[in-house]
Protein backbone atom coordinates (compact mmCIF):
# COMPACT_ATOMS: atom_id res chain seq x y z
CA UNK A 1 0.00 0.00 0.00
CA UNK A 2 1.74 3.07 -1.19
CA UNK A 3 0.18 6.35 -2.09
CA UNK A 4 1.96 8.48 -4.61
CA UNK A 5 4.12 11.23 -3.17
CA UNK A 6 2.25 13.63 -5.36
CA UNK A 7 -1.00 12.99 -3.47
CA UNK A 8 0.65 13.49 -0.10
CA UNK A 9 2.31 16.70 -1.24
CA UNK A 10 -0.84 18.03 -2.87
CA UNK A 11 -3.06 17.38 0.16
CA UNK A 12 -0.48 19.02 2.42
CA UNK A 13 -0.38 22.13 0.26
CA UNK A 14 -4.18 22.20 0.13
CA UNK A 15 -4.33 21.94 3.92
CA UNK A 16 -1.81 24.77 4.25
CA UNK A 17 -3.89 26.86 1.86
CA UNK A 18 -7.01 26.17 3.94
CA UNK A 19 -5.13 27.34 7.03
CA UNK A 20 -4.06 30.54 5.28
CA UNK A 21 -7.53 31.35 3.96
CA UNK A 22 -8.27 34.90 5.09
CA UNK A 23 -11.19 34.70 7.50
CA UNK A 24 -12.75 37.14 9.93
CA UNK A 25 -10.94 37.09 13.26
CA UNK A 26 -13.93 35.60 15.08
CA UNK A 27 -14.04 32.62 12.71
CA UNK A 28 -10.27 32.32 12.49
CA UNK A 29 -10.04 31.26 16.13
CA UNK A 30 -12.25 28.24 15.46
CA UNK A 31 -10.61 27.24 12.20
CA UNK A 32 -9.33 23.64 12.54
CA UNK A 33 -5.62 22.96 12.21
CA UNK A 34 -6.00 21.43 8.77
CA UNK A 35 -2.31 20.83 8.20
CA UNK A 36 -1.86 19.04 11.53
CA UNK A 37 -4.86 16.80 10.83
CA UNK A 38 -3.53 15.99 7.37
CA UNK A 39 -0.11 15.17 8.77
CA UNK A 40 -1.68 12.93 11.44
CA UNK A 41 -3.73 11.12 8.80
CA UNK A 42 -0.78 10.34 6.57
CA UNK A 43 1.42 9.25 9.45
CA UNK A 44 -1.39 7.03 10.71
CA UNK A 45 -2.20 5.29 7.44
CA UNK A 46 1.01 5.64 5.39
CA UNK A 47 3.69 5.59 8.10
CA UNK A 48 6.31 4.19 5.76
CA UNK A 49 6.11 7.29 3.59
CA UNK A 50 5.08 10.10 5.90
CA UNK A 51 7.09 9.96 9.06
CA UNK A 52 8.84 12.34 11.39
CA UNK A 53 10.78 14.24 8.74
CA UNK A 54 7.63 14.87 6.73
CA UNK A 55 5.94 16.22 9.88
CA UNK A 56 8.93 18.43 10.66
CA UNK A 57 8.97 19.97 7.19
CA UNK A 58 5.20 20.53 7.27
CA UNK A 59 5.50 22.24 10.65
CA UNK A 60 8.33 24.42 9.39
CA UNK A 61 6.25 25.50 6.41
CA UNK A 62 3.43 26.46 8.79
CA UNK A 63 5.88 28.49 10.87
CA UNK A 64 7.07 30.33 7.80
CA UNK A 65 3.54 30.90 6.54
CA UNK A 66 2.28 32.33 9.83
CA UNK A 67 5.42 34.35 10.55
CA UNK A 68 5.70 32.58 13.86
CA UNK A 69 8.77 31.56 15.78
CA UNK A 70 10.69 29.47 13.26
CA UNK A 71 10.80 25.86 14.45
CA UNK A 72 8.00 25.96 17.01
CA UNK A 73 5.37 24.23 14.92
CA UNK A 74 8.06 22.00 13.46
CA UNK A 75 8.86 20.77 16.97
CA UNK A 76 5.23 20.32 17.94
CA UNK A 77 4.31 18.53 14.71
CA UNK A 78 7.24 16.16 15.19
CA UNK A 79 6.27 15.39 18.77
CA UNK A 80 2.62 14.86 17.86
CA UNK A 81 3.51 12.50 15.03
CA UNK A 82 5.88 10.63 17.33
CA UNK A 83 2.98 10.17 19.74
CA UNK A 84 0.65 9.10 16.95
CA UNK A 85 3.17 6.64 15.55
CA UNK A 86 3.80 5.13 18.98
CA UNK A 87 0.07 4.56 19.46
CA UNK A 88 -0.50 3.72 15.83
CA UNK A 89 -1.51 0.08 16.12
CA UNK A 90 -4.21 0.93 18.63
CA UNK A 91 -5.23 4.18 16.97
CA UNK A 92 -5.57 3.02 13.38
CA UNK A 93 -8.17 0.35 14.14
CA UNK A 94 -10.11 2.42 16.67
CA UNK A 95 -13.59 3.61 15.72
CA UNK A 96 -13.78 7.00 14.11
CA UNK A 97 -15.27 8.71 17.15
CA UNK A 98 -12.60 7.60 19.57
CA UNK A 99 -9.98 8.51 16.98
CA UNK A 100 -11.41 12.01 16.88
CA UNK A 101 -11.45 12.19 20.67
CA UNK A 102 -7.82 11.08 20.89
CA UNK A 103 -6.78 13.60 18.26
CA UNK A 104 -8.64 16.34 20.12
CA UNK A 105 -6.67 15.40 23.23
CA UNK A 106 -3.40 15.50 21.29
CA UNK A 107 -4.23 18.97 20.01
CA UNK A 108 -5.04 20.22 23.49
CA UNK A 109 -1.62 19.15 24.66
CA UNK A 110 -0.18 20.62 21.45
CA UNK A 111 -1.78 24.01 22.06
CA UNK A 112 -0.73 24.08 25.70
CA UNK A 113 2.88 23.39 24.78
CA UNK A 114 2.65 26.07 22.07
CA UNK A 115 1.42 28.62 24.61
CA UNK A 116 4.14 27.67 27.01
CA UNK A 117 6.89 28.02 24.41
CA UNK A 118 5.48 31.39 23.31
CA UNK A 119 5.74 32.43 26.93
CA UNK A 120 9.35 31.42 27.39
CA UNK A 121 10.36 32.62 23.92
CA UNK A 122 12.20 35.52 25.46
CA UNK A 123 14.49 33.13 27.27
CA UNK A 124 15.33 31.35 24.05
CA UNK A 125 18.24 33.73 23.57
CA UNK A 126 19.94 32.22 26.60
CA UNK A 127 18.79 28.84 25.32
CA UNK A 128 21.28 29.24 22.47
CA UNK A 129 24.16 29.21 24.90
CA UNK A 130 22.79 26.12 26.63
CA UNK A 131 22.43 24.52 23.25
CA UNK A 132 26.10 24.87 22.49
CA UNK A 133 26.75 23.19 25.83
CA UNK A 134 24.49 20.32 24.85
CA UNK A 135 26.39 19.96 21.60
CA UNK A 136 29.73 19.95 23.36
CA UNK A 137 28.32 17.31 25.70
CA UNK A 138 27.48 15.29 22.62
CA UNK A 139 31.06 15.57 21.43
CA UNK A 140 32.55 14.90 24.84
CA UNK A 141 30.48 11.82 25.68
CA UNK A 142 32.48 9.31 23.60
CA UNK A 143 35.70 10.51 25.25
CA UNK A 144 34.23 10.26 28.74
CA UNK A 145 32.71 6.89 27.94
CA UNK A 146 35.96 5.55 26.62
CA UNK A 147 38.03 6.81 29.55
CA UNK A 148 35.63 5.78 32.29
CA UNK A 149 34.83 2.36 30.86
CA UNK A 150 38.57 1.78 30.64
CA UNK A 151 38.95 2.88 34.24
CA UNK A 152 36.05 0.71 35.35
CA UNK A 153 37.62 -2.34 33.71
CA UNK A 154 41.01 -1.62 35.24
CA UNK A 155 39.62 -1.13 38.72
CA UNK A 156 37.77 -4.47 38.49
CA UNK A 157 40.94 -6.38 38.76
Amino acid sequence: MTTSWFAILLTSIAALALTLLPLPAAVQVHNPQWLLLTVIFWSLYRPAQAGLIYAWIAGLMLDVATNGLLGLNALLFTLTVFLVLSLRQRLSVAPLLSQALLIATFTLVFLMVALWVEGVANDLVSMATYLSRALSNLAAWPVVFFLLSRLARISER
Partner: protein
Amino acid sequence: MALFDSHRPGLNLLLVLVVVSIALMSLDRIGTRWVGQLDQGLGGATDGIIKTIHQPVVMARGIGQWFVERRELHAEVERLREENTLLRGQMQQFVALQREVDELRAMLDGEASTIPGVLLARRIGHPPSLRGNLFTIGRGFGDDVRPGDPVIDAHGVVGQILRSTRFGATVIQLTSRDHMLSVILGDTGRSALLRGTGDRQLVVERVPERTAIEPGDLLTTSGIDTAFPRGYPVARVSTIEMDEAQGFIRLIAEPVADLERLDHVLVITEPPDAPDASPKAGGTPGETLERPAVAPAPDESATTATGESDDD
Protein backbone atom coordinates in the same frame (compact mmCIF):
# COMPACT_ATOMS: atom_id res chain seq x y z
CA MET B 1 -0.20 -6.14 6.07
CA ALA B 2 0.84 -2.63 6.78
CA LEU B 3 -1.25 -2.70 9.91
CA PHE B 4 0.98 -5.28 11.53
CA ASP B 5 4.24 -3.55 10.76
CA SER B 6 5.01 -1.58 13.85
CA HIS B 7 6.57 1.46 12.17
CA ARG B 8 7.76 2.43 15.60
CA PRO B 9 9.62 5.70 14.96
CA GLY B 10 13.29 5.89 15.69
CA LEU B 11 14.20 7.68 18.88
CA ASN B 12 17.43 8.97 17.36
CA LEU B 13 15.61 10.72 14.55
CA LEU B 14 13.17 12.27 17.01
CA LEU B 15 15.98 13.58 19.19
CA VAL B 16 17.84 15.01 16.23
CA LEU B 17 14.71 16.77 14.99
CA VAL B 18 13.94 18.13 18.46
CA VAL B 19 17.45 19.52 18.82
CA VAL B 20 17.32 21.03 15.33
CA SER B 21 13.95 22.64 16.10
CA ILE B 22 15.14 24.14 19.37
CA ALA B 23 18.31 25.39 17.70
CA LEU B 24 16.23 26.95 14.94
CA MET B 25 13.94 28.63 17.47
CA SER B 26 16.73 30.16 19.46
CA LEU B 27 18.65 31.22 16.35
CA ASP B 28 15.45 32.80 14.97
CA ARG B 29 14.98 34.59 18.25
CA ILE B 30 18.49 35.97 18.11
CA GLY B 31 18.00 36.95 14.49
CA THR B 32 20.74 35.05 12.68
CA ARG B 33 21.11 36.01 9.05
CA TRP B 34 20.86 32.58 7.45
CA VAL B 35 17.72 31.79 9.43
CA GLY B 36 16.30 35.00 7.99
CA GLN B 37 17.29 33.84 4.53
CA LEU B 38 15.65 30.46 5.12
CA ASP B 39 12.51 32.26 6.28
CA GLN B 40 12.57 34.45 3.22
CA GLY B 41 13.18 31.59 0.81
CA LEU B 42 10.43 29.35 2.16
CA GLY B 43 8.21 32.39 2.63
CA GLY B 44 8.21 32.80 -1.15
CA ALA B 45 6.32 29.52 -1.41
CA THR B 46 3.76 30.37 1.25
CA ASP B 47 3.23 33.88 -0.06
CA GLY B 48 2.69 32.26 -3.45
CA ILE B 49 -0.02 30.11 -1.86
CA ILE B 50 -1.64 33.19 -0.30
CA LYS B 51 -1.53 34.95 -3.65
CA THR B 52 -3.11 31.94 -5.34
CA ILE B 53 -5.92 31.84 -2.75
CA HIS B 54 -6.52 35.50 -3.42
CA GLN B 55 -6.94 34.94 -7.16
CA PRO B 56 -10.65 33.94 -6.94
CA VAL B 57 -11.35 37.24 -5.18
CA VAL B 58 -9.63 39.13 -7.98
CA MET B 59 -11.54 37.12 -10.57
CA ALA B 60 -14.85 37.67 -8.79
CA ARG B 61 -14.13 41.36 -8.74
CA GLY B 62 -13.31 41.23 -12.45
CA ILE B 63 -16.57 39.42 -13.21
CA GLY B 64 -18.45 41.89 -11.03
CA GLN B 65 -17.08 44.73 -13.10
CA TRP B 66 -18.84 43.34 -16.17
CA PHE B 67 -22.19 44.01 -14.62
CA VAL B 68 -21.61 47.57 -13.53
CA GLU B 69 -23.90 50.04 -15.28
CA ARG B 70 -22.29 52.31 -17.81
CA ARG B 71 -23.89 55.29 -16.13
CA GLU B 72 -22.37 54.36 -12.75
CA LEU B 73 -18.98 54.01 -14.37
CA HIS B 74 -19.24 57.44 -15.88
CA ALA B 75 -20.28 58.88 -12.51
CA GLU B 76 -17.32 57.16 -10.88
CA VAL B 77 -14.90 58.49 -13.50
CA GLU B 78 -16.34 61.95 -13.03
CA ARG B 79 -15.94 61.77 -9.27
CA LEU B 80 -12.37 60.53 -9.52
CA ARG B 81 -11.53 63.23 -12.05
CA GLU B 82 -12.83 65.88 -9.67
CA GLU B 83 -10.88 64.39 -6.80
CA ASN B 84 -7.77 64.24 -8.93
CA THR B 85 -8.09 67.90 -9.90
CA LEU B 86 -8.65 68.83 -6.30
CA LEU B 87 -5.62 66.89 -5.12
CA ARG B 88 -3.43 68.23 -7.90
CA GLY B 89 -4.49 71.73 -6.97
CA GLN B 90 -3.57 71.12 -3.36
CA MET B 91 -0.34 69.55 -4.41
CA GLN B 92 0.79 72.62 -6.33
CA GLN B 93 0.56 74.51 -3.10
CA PHE B 94 2.51 71.83 -1.27
CA VAL B 95 5.23 71.71 -3.89
CA ALA B 96 5.60 75.47 -3.59
CA LEU B 97 5.61 75.21 0.19
CA GLN B 98 8.17 72.47 0.08
CA ARG B 99 10.46 74.49 -2.14
CA GLU B 100 10.14 77.38 0.26
CA VAL B 101 10.90 75.18 3.24
CA ASP B 102 13.88 73.68 1.45
CA GLU B 103 15.24 77.12 0.67
CA LEU B 104 14.80 78.19 4.26
CA ARG B 105 16.45 75.04 5.49
CA ALA B 106 19.32 75.50 3.05
CA MET B 107 19.85 78.97 4.48
CA LEU B 108 19.97 77.44 7.95
CA ASP B 109 22.45 74.82 6.70
CA GLY B 110 19.84 72.12 7.21
CA GLU B 111 19.07 69.17 4.99
CA ALA B 112 16.55 69.64 2.23
CA SER B 113 13.67 67.20 2.46
CA THR B 114 12.49 65.19 -0.51
CA ILE B 115 9.23 63.40 -0.98
CA PRO B 116 9.93 59.66 -1.03
CA GLY B 117 8.65 57.33 -3.71
CA VAL B 118 5.68 55.18 -2.87
CA LEU B 119 4.25 51.93 -4.18
CA LEU B 120 0.58 51.05 -4.17
CA ALA B 121 -0.01 47.53 -2.84
CA ARG B 122 -3.11 45.46 -2.31
CA ARG B 123 -3.72 43.54 0.87
CA ILE B 124 -4.14 39.90 -0.06
CA GLY B 125 -4.52 38.08 3.23
CA HIS B 126 -3.62 37.82 6.84
CA PRO B 127 -1.68 34.92 8.30
CA PRO B 128 -3.45 33.20 11.21
CA SER B 129 -1.13 34.30 13.98
CA LEU B 130 -1.93 34.38 17.68
CA ARG B 131 -1.62 38.13 17.90
CA GLY B 132 -3.33 38.91 14.60
CA ASN B 133 -1.48 42.11 13.84
CA LEU B 134 0.06 40.97 10.58
CA PHE B 135 -1.17 41.04 7.03
CA THR B 136 0.23 40.14 3.63
CA ILE B 137 0.45 42.43 0.62
CA GLY B 138 0.87 41.47 -3.00
CA ARG B 139 4.14 43.27 -3.64
CA GLY B 140 7.45 41.69 -2.86
CA PHE B 141 11.16 41.73 -3.34
CA GLY B 142 10.84 42.31 -7.08
CA ASP B 143 9.09 45.62 -6.48
CA ASP B 144 11.90 46.80 -4.25
CA VAL B 145 9.98 46.23 -1.04
CA ARG B 146 12.51 45.67 1.75
CA PRO B 147 12.08 44.67 5.38
CA GLY B 148 11.73 47.82 7.47
CA ASP B 149 10.04 49.93 4.80
CA PRO B 150 7.24 52.10 6.21
CA VAL B 151 3.66 51.32 5.19
CA ILE B 152 0.97 54.02 5.17
CA ASP B 153 -2.61 54.41 4.01
CA ALA B 154 -4.56 57.51 2.97
CA HIS B 155 -4.79 58.72 6.56
CA GLY B 156 -1.58 57.82 8.31
CA VAL B 157 1.04 55.26 9.27
CA VAL B 158 -0.05 51.60 9.16
CA GLY B 159 3.13 49.77 10.08
CA GLN B 160 6.33 48.37 8.66
CA ILE B 161 7.39 45.57 6.34
CA LEU B 162 8.39 42.58 8.45
CA ARG B 163 9.43 40.16 5.75
CA SER B 164 9.67 40.48 2.01
CA THR B 165 9.70 37.51 -0.35
CA ARG B 166 9.46 36.96 -4.08
CA PHE B 167 5.67 36.94 -4.22
CA GLY B 168 4.61 39.17 -1.38
CA ALA B 169 5.50 40.84 1.85
CA THR B 170 4.27 40.65 5.41
CA VAL B 171 3.40 43.89 7.18
CA ILE B 172 3.45 44.29 10.95
CA GLN B 173 0.87 46.82 12.11
CA LEU B 174 1.87 49.56 14.50
CA THR B 175 -0.69 48.25 16.99
CA SER B 176 1.33 45.06 17.44
CA ARG B 177 2.96 44.51 20.78
CA ASP B 178 6.28 44.00 18.99
CA HIS B 179 6.22 47.38 17.26
CA MET B 180 7.56 50.74 18.40
CA LEU B 181 8.21 54.00 16.62
CA SER B 182 9.44 57.44 17.50
CA VAL B 183 6.84 60.23 17.38
CA ILE B 184 6.63 63.96 18.02
CA LEU B 185 3.96 64.89 20.56
CA GLY B 186 1.62 67.41 18.94
CA ASP B 187 3.05 70.91 18.71
CA THR B 188 5.44 70.48 21.60
CA GLY B 189 8.38 69.28 19.52
CA ARG B 190 9.13 66.70 22.14
CA SER B 191 9.76 63.20 20.83
CA ALA B 192 8.77 59.97 22.52
CA LEU B 193 8.37 56.29 21.79
CA LEU B 194 4.96 55.02 20.74
CA ARG B 195 4.33 51.39 21.59
CA GLY B 196 1.61 49.03 20.35
CA THR B 197 -0.41 47.06 22.89
CA GLY B 198 -1.89 44.30 20.76
CA ASP B 199 -5.36 45.81 20.45
CA ARG B 200 -6.40 49.14 18.95
CA GLN B 201 -4.66 51.30 21.52
CA LEU B 202 -1.18 52.74 21.40
CA VAL B 203 0.75 53.91 24.44
CA VAL B 204 3.39 56.56 25.05
CA GLU B 205 5.01 56.00 28.42
CA ARG B 206 7.05 58.35 30.55
CA VAL B 207 6.08 61.73 29.19
CA PRO B 208 7.10 64.54 31.56
CA GLU B 209 4.09 65.90 33.37
CA ARG B 210 4.60 69.46 32.18
CA THR B 211 4.27 68.59 28.49
CA ALA B 212 1.48 70.72 27.02
CA ILE B 213 -0.55 67.98 25.38
CA GLU B 214 -4.29 67.40 25.30
CA PRO B 215 -6.65 64.69 24.11
CA GLY B 216 -7.15 65.11 20.37
CA ASP B 217 -3.57 66.17 19.65
CA LEU B 218 -1.89 64.50 16.72
CA LEU B 219 1.28 62.43 17.04
CA THR B 220 3.49 62.53 13.94
CA THR B 221 6.58 60.55 13.03
CA SER B 222 9.78 62.21 14.18
CA GLY B 223 12.22 60.68 11.72
CA ILE B 224 14.69 60.04 14.50
CA ASP B 225 14.36 56.28 14.16
CA THR B 226 15.37 56.63 10.45
CA ALA B 227 12.76 54.01 9.60
CA PHE B 228 9.92 56.46 9.07
CA PRO B 229 10.37 59.78 7.27
CA ARG B 230 9.50 62.80 9.34
CA GLY B 231 6.01 64.30 9.52
CA TYR B 232 3.56 61.46 8.83
CA PRO B 233 0.47 61.45 11.05
CA VAL B 234 0.44 58.38 13.29
CA ALA B 235 -2.14 58.59 16.05
CA ARG B 236 -4.45 60.89 17.94
CA VAL B 237 -4.28 61.15 21.75
CA SER B 238 -7.48 59.81 23.28
CA THR B 239 -6.79 59.83 27.02
CA ILE B 240 -4.07 61.05 29.31
CA GLU B 241 -3.38 59.05 32.43
CA MET B 242 -1.80 60.90 35.31
CA ASP B 243 1.00 59.28 37.18
CA GLU B 244 1.52 61.97 39.77
CA ALA B 245 3.74 60.10 42.15
CA GLN B 246 6.39 59.85 39.47
CA GLY B 247 5.99 63.20 37.74
CA PHE B 248 5.20 61.50 34.46
CA ILE B 249 2.07 61.00 32.41
CA ARG B 250 1.05 58.23 30.08
CA LEU B 251 -0.68 58.94 26.78
CA ILE B 252 -3.18 56.56 25.24
CA ALA B 253 -3.60 57.13 21.52
CA GLU B 254 -5.56 55.64 18.65
CA PRO B 255 -4.07 55.18 15.17
CA VAL B 256 -5.26 57.60 12.47
CA ALA B 257 -4.96 54.95 9.78
CA ASP B 258 -8.12 52.99 9.04
CA LEU B 259 -6.75 49.64 10.20
CA GLU B 260 -10.11 47.84 10.19
CA ARG B 261 -10.80 48.40 6.52
CA LEU B 262 -7.43 48.19 4.85
CA ASP B 263 -7.64 47.23 1.22
CA HIS B 264 -4.87 49.20 -0.43
CA VAL B 265 -1.79 50.49 1.32
CA LEU B 266 1.21 52.49 0.20
CA VAL B 267 4.75 51.24 0.79
CA ILE B 268 7.41 53.93 1.00
CA THR B 269 10.12 52.22 -0.96
CA GLU B 270 12.81 54.83 -1.24
CA PRO B 271 14.69 56.08 1.77
CA PRO B 272 13.65 59.61 2.71
CA ASP B 273 16.97 61.09 1.60
CA ALA B 274 16.91 59.65 -1.92
CA PRO B 275 17.61 62.28 -4.57
CA ASP B 276 15.38 63.55 -7.43
CA ALA B 277 12.14 61.86 -6.45
CA SER B 278 9.98 64.97 -6.55
CA PRO B 279 10.13 66.31 -10.12
CA LYS B 280 9.17 63.08 -11.85
CA ALA B 281 6.86 61.79 -9.18
CA GLY B 282 3.93 64.00 -10.17
CA GLY B 283 3.03 61.79 -13.12
CA THR B 284 1.51 58.67 -11.61
CA PRO B 285 -1.75 58.82 -9.71
CA GLY B 286 -0.55 56.78 -6.73
CA GLU B 287 2.05 59.33 -5.90
CA THR B 288 -0.27 62.24 -6.45
CA LEU B 289 -2.75 60.80 -4.01
CA GLU B 290 -0.09 60.26 -1.45
CA ARG B 291 1.42 63.69 -1.50
CA PRO B 292 -0.92 65.77 0.62
CA ALA B 293 -0.25 63.49 3.55
CA VAL B 294 3.50 63.87 3.15
CA ALA B 295 3.83 67.64 3.47
CA PRO B 296 7.39 67.80 4.72
CA ALA B 297 6.71 71.18 6.30
CA PRO B 298 6.61 71.72 10.07
CA ASP B 299 4.06 69.83 12.10
CA GLU B 300 1.24 72.34 11.88
CA SER B 301 0.91 72.14 8.12
CA ALA B 302 1.09 68.34 8.32
CA THR B 303 -1.86 68.47 10.67
CA THR B 304 -3.91 70.66 8.38
CA ALA B 305 -3.05 68.50 5.42
CA THR B 306 -4.49 65.39 7.00
CA GLY B 307 -7.45 67.34 8.30
CA GLU B 308 -8.34 68.25 4.76
CA SER B 309 -7.92 64.77 3.41
CA ASP B 310 -10.13 63.49 6.22
CA ASP B 311 -12.90 65.79 5.13
CA ASP B 312 -12.98 64.51 1.57
